[in-house]
């Protein structure tokens, strides 16, 4: 079977029960991450999730030590998840506490918490390595995620937790939207902003701890950040943005897991992140709203309009044109001949733009405070912003002035 065939088999969940579960689990995880991440992104606290994810490590280590001390299997996934949730909650509260109680800004608090908790976690991992050789194998997998050799019970845990997290996002969407956009207004409507913020971060925490096994703690933050960044390119409305973000997260997780099961040497976490990044590149380039191509096109059109207008005004005033681009644009639209003399059509268009400028000038003189003047950009024809009657009035005043002169 070639790679592509295997990839398609994995995509259609035909590649075995285990990889199907991993793919579904990763998809649900991505769905929850995209949804929760959208609110955090709108609240402009994307990197708090980085602190949360790094703060899971001491919890994983301590949970392992505790479970072994009580004679259990140190690698029991739900136990490790609970441990990591507790320590990352402590990390999150530390970030909150430092930001509230001291003069340090949130980014300093994030950097401090993530490096210190991670360092402490590494200390615990080295202790584990010495206390029961061999049995710790697999904890390093939490750094970068490891789905190869995943137990079916583990995959099921992740799938169920992912679904629950996605439901929580759905249930809390209204207060979280309000807080993300206007925390003060939300407070006046009776929403507890601090609690909602904590719930938002709590969702990120849930996503992080269940994603540890698949994506790993260094990269899970990407699943919370990249999908909302992509989604923001495609819409200006909250509801659709959260939906798009969740779908991009889910699809990235699903495709990434399928790709990595198709090529066993590809680690799951990085593949999922790179698939999500692919969506980002597509959004950045091709979004009609804020994409790079769309704005380049807008810029190009605007440039041509400016050159055309300025060229026509120069023609009407019998001034010579030196700018190459202006000449080219006028020639291409058939307004001047090869020897730069205006064609009939060009002369008409030039007269019209001169008249337009004169009318705008009259408006400036007659109604200096009118809001319509805000629309003047040297390009907009006056017919677009004023009625025919108004223009007739303006023309009359222009005639009177000429008569006086």
């Amino acid at each position, binding site marked *: 079977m070639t790679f592509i065939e295997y990839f398609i088999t994995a995509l259609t969940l035909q590649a075995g029960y285990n990889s199907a579960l991993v793919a579904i689990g990763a998809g649900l995880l991505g769905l929850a991450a995209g949804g929760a991440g959208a609110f955090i*992104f709108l609240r*402009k*606290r*994307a*990197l708090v*999730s*980085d602190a949360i994810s790094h703060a899971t490590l001491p919890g994983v280590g301590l949970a392992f030590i505790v479970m072994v001390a009580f004679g259990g299997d140190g690698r029991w996934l739900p136990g490790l998840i609970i441990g990591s949730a507790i320590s990352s909650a402590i990390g999150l509260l530390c970030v909150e*506490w*430092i930001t509230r*109680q*001291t*003069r*340090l*800004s949130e*980014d*300093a608090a*994030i*950097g*401090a918490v*993530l*490096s*210190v*908790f*991670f*360092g*402490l*976690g*590494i*200390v615990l*991992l*080295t*202790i584990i390595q*010495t206390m029961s050789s061999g049995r710790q194998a697999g904890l*390093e997998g939490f*750094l*970068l995620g490891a789905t190869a050799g995943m137990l079916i019970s583990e995959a099921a845990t992740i799938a169920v937790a992912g679904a629950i997290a996605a439901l929580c996002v759905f249930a809390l969407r209204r207060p979280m939207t309000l807080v993300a956009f206007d925390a003060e207004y939300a407070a006046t409507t009776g929403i507890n902003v601090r609690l909602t913020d904590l719930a938002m971060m709590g969702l990120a925490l849930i996503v992080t701890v269940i994603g540890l096994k698949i994506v790993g703690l*260094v*990269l899970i*933050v*990407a699943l919370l*950040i*990249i999908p*909302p*960044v992509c989604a*923001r*390119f495609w819409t200006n409305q909250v509801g659709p943005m959260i939906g798009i973000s969740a779908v991009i997260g889910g699809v990235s997780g699903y495709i990434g897991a399928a790709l990595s099961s198709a090529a066993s*040497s*590809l*680690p799951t*976490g*990085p*593949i999922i*992140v*790179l698939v999500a*990044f692919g969506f*980002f590149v597509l*959004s*950045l380039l091709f979004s009609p709203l*804020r994409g*790079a191509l769309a704005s380049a096109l807008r810029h190009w059109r605007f440039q041509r309009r400016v050159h055309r207008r300025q060229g026509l005004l120069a023609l009407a005033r019998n001034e010579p044109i030196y700018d190459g681009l202006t000449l080219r644009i006028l020639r291409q639209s058939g307004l001047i001949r090869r020897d730069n003399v205006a064609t009939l059509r060009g002369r008409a268009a030039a007269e019209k733009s001169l008249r337009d400028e004169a009318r705008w000038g009259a408006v400036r003189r007659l109604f200096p405070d009118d809001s319509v003047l805000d629309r003047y950009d040297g390009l907009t024809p006056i017919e677009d912003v004023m009625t025919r009657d108004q223009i007739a009035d303006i023309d009359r005043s222009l005639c009177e002035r000429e008569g006086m002169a």
Partner: protein
Amino acid sequence: MMGAEFVQLSLPPIVIGILAAIACALPGNFLLLRRQALIGDAISHVVLPGIVAAFLVTGTIAAWPMMIGAAVAAIVAVVLIEIVKRLGRVEPGAAMGLVFTTLFAAGVLFLERSDTSSVHIDVEHALLGNLESLIWFDAEGWHSLLDPVALATLPPQLSRLAITLAAMIVFLTLFWKELKISTFDAAFAGAIGIHTRLLGFALVVATAIAAVAAFDAVGSIIVIAMFVCPPAAARLMTNRLDHQVGWSVIFATISAILGYVLAGYGPGWFGSPYAVSAAGMIATIAGIILGLACLFGPQRKRTSQSAAGA
């Protein structure tokens, strides 16, 4: 504990730890005040793809190509963050998170896909460093410090970090006034003719160089911890920039020494024959110092002015 064995096994890592900690803490002061503390985090993540790319291009694991690769990756990351911010009008934090996770993922992927099994690069090494293994074989005691033959066999990381730290001190001394003004009042700095954007970029490049030189010896955890924790703790001690820099150097030094000693000898006090990760312990000590500063630092509260501003 203070005999020949100490000079051979513990002195070089401690000195290297101190050099790395100070080299990172110095620019960290300015990053902290400019609210760019997480640039250090982003840079230390992209070091991995940098060294992997350098390995793929040169095929060797010599130190200089790796350091150049890592420095290039750091600069590429900073430029990419700017592009994402400008082109996509994405919020800075999100742009940073997007770029460094993607580059890190690419680094891990290249590492797994390329035939690097024969050489010693792995993710954990990049994260943790190998401070404990930087020993001085030819030392026979304190007198070896005066013996040029023995000195020549010091771990090369030591001299690299010493050069980096010296360069950092020169950079900060030369541009002290400009950095200070542009950090506190960018508009005024621009008005008196300081190229604030160029200076900001230079600071980031200096940060990247410090991160790259330090990570090779001590791993990226210490790098991130030292960029943030000592300057943050120092910020809570004083309102003067020069005092803050001084405090941050003291805190960085204490973290490095205490962290290494606790990691190496601490478990022995509890009857365990094994040492724990020195890198992790140094970061932990730095965190404890910051925690104490948060609780007791004389200037820990916001002044009324900045509270009103915030």
